C-alpha cells in the first residue's frame, strides 16, 4: 500500500487520511485514551517535527512512542537520560577496531541513529548532553571527530520530561525547547480509561500491533505522505493571521496584548509560525481539505507555542500559565467577519 507519486490529488489525500486514521487506531489499541496526544504525535511525525511530552511517570509515554514507531514500521531507539549520560553515549563514538591485521578507528553509531528516538526524561541529563541532540534535531545529522553522518529520514525525536521532580534536573534551554514542534501535556486517565488499562495490562490478553508499512518501504512511504503535507495551500490572509498571532505573543511586538507585555519575557521565534502552519496543514488534510482554515490554525496554536513563550518572574509568582496567555491572544485577534 502507499501513495504512488503519479496518483491523483484526491487519491493522495485519501491515502493520507487512511494511513493516519489507521495509525491512530493501532496506537489506540495499545494506549488507552490520550487520543489528542496520539494525534499530536502522529501530526509531528508527518510534519517532520519533534515532540516533547510532559507527564507524570506511568502514563504510558514510552509505550506510546514505541507503539507509534512500530505501527509505521520505523526503527525505534530509546535513550534514558541520566545525569552521567555523555554526548558520545547518544551520538556514538570512534572505536578502535582491528581487521586484516590493521587497526583503525571505526564509527560506532549511538542510539540517536534511528527513525524514532525516544529521549526519556530528557531534563535529567546535563545541558552538555542535552545539546548533543540539538544538531540531530535541527539538521538531521551528527558530527563526530569532524565527520558528519546523516540521519536517515524520517527522523523524529520524542522527548519526555517529568514535571514533578525538580531536584537533580536540568530544565531544557530555550534553544532546545524551540526545536520541538509540539509540547504535549499528558493528563491522568479517566476512571473508565484506567479500568481499561488495568484490564489490558494485568490479564493474559496482549495486543499485538499490526504495522501499516513494511520496514523496508516505511521510510519512503512516510516521506511521500510528508511531501503531501507540504503541498497543502495556505491563503495569504491566513498567513497574516499567524503573523499577527506571533506579533501579539511577543512583548513589545506589533499588536502585543497587555497580558503578554505584563507576563512574558520573550515571545515565540519564527519556528513557532512554521510549526503552526505545518500542523495546521496536517489538520486540514485530516479534515479532507487541501487548504488551511482558521480552525486548523487555532487548533495548533497552543501545542505549538506554549513552550516557546518565556514567562517572567511575575507570571511565575502569580501562576499565570502560557496556555492562559495564548487563550487571551486568540480571543483578542480579529478574524474577518461577514
Amino acid at each position, binding site marked *: 500500500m502507499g501513495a504512488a507519486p503519479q496518483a491523483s490529488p484526491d487519491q493522495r489525500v485519501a491515502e493520507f487520511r487512511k494511513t493516519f486514521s489507521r495509525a491512530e487506531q493501532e496506537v489506540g489499541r495499545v494506549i488507552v485514551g490520550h487520543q489528542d496526544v496520539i494525534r499530536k504525535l502522529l501530526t509531528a511525525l508527518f510534519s517532520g517535527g519533534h515532540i516533547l511530552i510532559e507527564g507524570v511517570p506511568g502514563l504510558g509515554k514510552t509505550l506510546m512512542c514505541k507503539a507509534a514507531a512500530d505501527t509505521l514500521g520505523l526503527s525505534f531507539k530509546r535513550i534514558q537520560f541520566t545525569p552521567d549520560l555523555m554526548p558520545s553515549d547518544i551520538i556514538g563514538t570512534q572505536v578502535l577496531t582491528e581487521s586484516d591485521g590493521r587497526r583503525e578507528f571505526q564509527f560506532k553509531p549511538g542510539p540517536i541513529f534511528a527513525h524514532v528516538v525516544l529521549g526519556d526524561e530528557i531534563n535529567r541529563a546535563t545541558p552538555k548532553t542535552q545539546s548533543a541532540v540539538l544538531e540531530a534535531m535541527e539538521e538531521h545529522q551528527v558530527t563526530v571527530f569532524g565527520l558528519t553522518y546523516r540521519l536517515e529520514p524520517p527522523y523524529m525525536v520524542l522527548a519526555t520530561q517529568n514535571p514533578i521532580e525538580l531536584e537533580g534536573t536540568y530544565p531544557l534551554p530555550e534553544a532546545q525547547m524551540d526545536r520541538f514542534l509540539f509540547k504535549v501535556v499528558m493528563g491522568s486517565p479517566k476512571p473508565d480509561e484506567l479500568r481499561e488499562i488495568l484490564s489490558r495490562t494485568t490479564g493474559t490478553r496482549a495486543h499485538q500491533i499490526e504495522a501499516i508499512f513494511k520496514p523496508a518501504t516505511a521510510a519512503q512511504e512516510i516521506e511521500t505522505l510528508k511531501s503531501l503535507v507540504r503541498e*497543502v495551500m495556505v491563503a495569504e490572509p*491566513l498567513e497574516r493571521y499567524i503573523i499577527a498571532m506571533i506579533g501579539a505573543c511577543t512583548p513589545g511586538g506589533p499588536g502585543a496584548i497587555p497580558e503578554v507585555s505584563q507576563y512574558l519575557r520573550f515571545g515565540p521565534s519564527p519556528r513557532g509560525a512554521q510549526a503552526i502552519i505545518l500542523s495546521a496543514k496536517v489538520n486540514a488534510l485530516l479534515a479532507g481539505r487541501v*487548504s*488551511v482554515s482558521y480552525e486548523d490554525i487555532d487548533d495548533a496554536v497552543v501545542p505549538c507555542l506554549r513552550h516557546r513563550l518565556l514567562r517572567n518572574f511575575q507570571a511565575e509568582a502569580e501562576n499565570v500559565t502560557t496556555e492562559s496567555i495564548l487563550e487571551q491572544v486568540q480571543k483578542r485577534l480579529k478574524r474577518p467577519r461577514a
Partner: protein
Amino acid sequence: MPNPVEILGRARNRIAQVAAIRAGAYAIAPALVALGLALALSPIGRATWMRWGYMLAPERAAILRDALYAIAAGAVAAGAILALRAYRNALDFVAAAEQVDIAMRARQEILTFAALADPELDEDAKTARSPLFALLWRRAIGLLEHFDSAKAFPLSLGRPLARSSMLAGVVAVAMILAAMGLVRPPTREQAIAARLREIAREIEATSTDPTDRAIAAEASAAADALENPKIPPQQKIKKLDDAMHDLQQEKKGAGGANKGVGAGGGNQAAKGQGKGSGQGGGNQGKGNGSGGSDKSNQAGSGAGKNQQGNNGSGGKNGKQSKDPATDLQNQLADAKAQIESDAKNSPKPDTNKISDDNQPGNAPRTGGNPDKKGAATKPDSTRPGNVPKGDAAGKQNVPPTGSSQASAKDMGSNLGDTHLGETPPAANYQRYLKPGEKGAALDIHDARYVMFRLPNGAIVGAGGKNVIDSSHPTATTAYVNAPLKESTDQAAPDERQLVPPRYRDLIH
C-alpha cells in the same frame, strides 16, 4: 461547467455595488434634510418665528439658506466620495472571495482558491501553484455552483439609513440653533416690509393681470427700499408714493369700492384722512383712517385706512380687509407714516457743527476790528476756582474697608515704615519647626517681613473637652482644647509685619 473565477468576479462586483450604495446612503438623509430646509425656510419661518413675533432678516435668511445648500451639496459630495471609495475597496478579488467564503461557510477554501486564482497574479505565481490546486479548483466549483451573489449579499439599507437619519437630525438641530441665533424682533420698518412682500406674493399668486403684477412688483420694490438703510427717507417716501399712486390708478380703473387717500401740504401739520365703505355681511359699514401727520417743512400726505364694517357696527370695530389691494394700501400708508415719523425724530445734520472728528475744524476768523481786544487768556481772579467736590468720585483713592475678605484681613500698612513701596507678593514660605520636630534650619536672611498665620477654627468633630480655667481669676468662659485646623502655606496670612531695615542685617 461554471467557472469559479467568473462567479467570484460577479460576486465581487455585487459586493462593490452594495458597498457603494450603502456608503452613499449615509449622505442621503442629511442632503435631503438640508435641501428641504433650505427650500422651505420661508414657510418654516412663517410657521414658527414669525408667528412668535421674530423675524429673520433677508440677508441672514440668505446666509442660512446658502449654508443649508452648502451642507446639502457637501453631503452629496461626501456620499459620492464614500461610495467611490467603498466601491474601489470592495473590488479586491481576494477580499470579495473572503466574504463569499464566510457567507458559504467554506472554511477558507474559496478564500485560498481566490488567493491562488486571482486574475491579477503574475505568471510566476501561477506556475508555482501547489499540485493540489486542481483539487481545490474542483472543490471551488462544487461550492460555487449554485451560488447566487444577489441572494448572498442583499442590499439592506436599514443600518446606513438609520445612521444617516442621525446625521440628518444633527443637520436639523444645527439649522434650528442657527435660526435661533439669527432671528431678531423686527423693527417696524422690517415688519411693514415683510407684510408688503407677503401682500405682493399674495397678489402675484392670485392674479394674472399684468397690472396687478406690476403693483406687486412695485410693492416688493417698496419693501426692499424700506429695509435698505442706504436709501434716504425722501426716496423711500417717493417709492411708497409711487406704489400708492399706481395702486390708486388701478383701483380707480377697476371701480373698486374701497378708497380713501388724504393729503396735506404746506408748512403746517398736515393730516390726511380717508374714508372707505364696504359691504360686510349685507350691512353697510364705514371705516375711518388717518394718515400720518407731518410737521416738517416737507409736504405731508396721509392715506386713510379702509376698514370693512363688521355687521354694520362701524369702523372702529371693523376687521381688517381681506382684499390684498386694500391691505397693501394700508401697509403702504403705515410705511410712509413710519418713515415720516422717523425722519422727524432723527436729529437733523447741523452743517455748522463738525460731526466727524476726522474732519478739520474751522479756523478762527481774523477779527475785523484791530483795536478790539481778544478773548481773555489770563485767569480771572474774581471768579472762584474749581474746588474738588466731595462726591462719589472723591472716594476713589480711599482704601476699601472690608469690601473683600482678603483686604478685610489685611491689618498691615501697604507702605509700612520702610517707605519702600508695596509689599511684594509672598514667596519662599518657611515654617517654624514644632517642638521635637527635626528639619532644615530657618533661613530668613534678608527677610522683608514676617507673617503670622493663626488657625481659623477647630476641626469639626475632632473631639476635645471643655476646660474651665479656674486658676485665672478673670477667665469666665470655657474653652475647648480641640485640635485646630491645619493652615496651608498657600493661605493668605492673617497678619504680617514688615521687618524694619535697621534689623535686616542682623537676621541670619
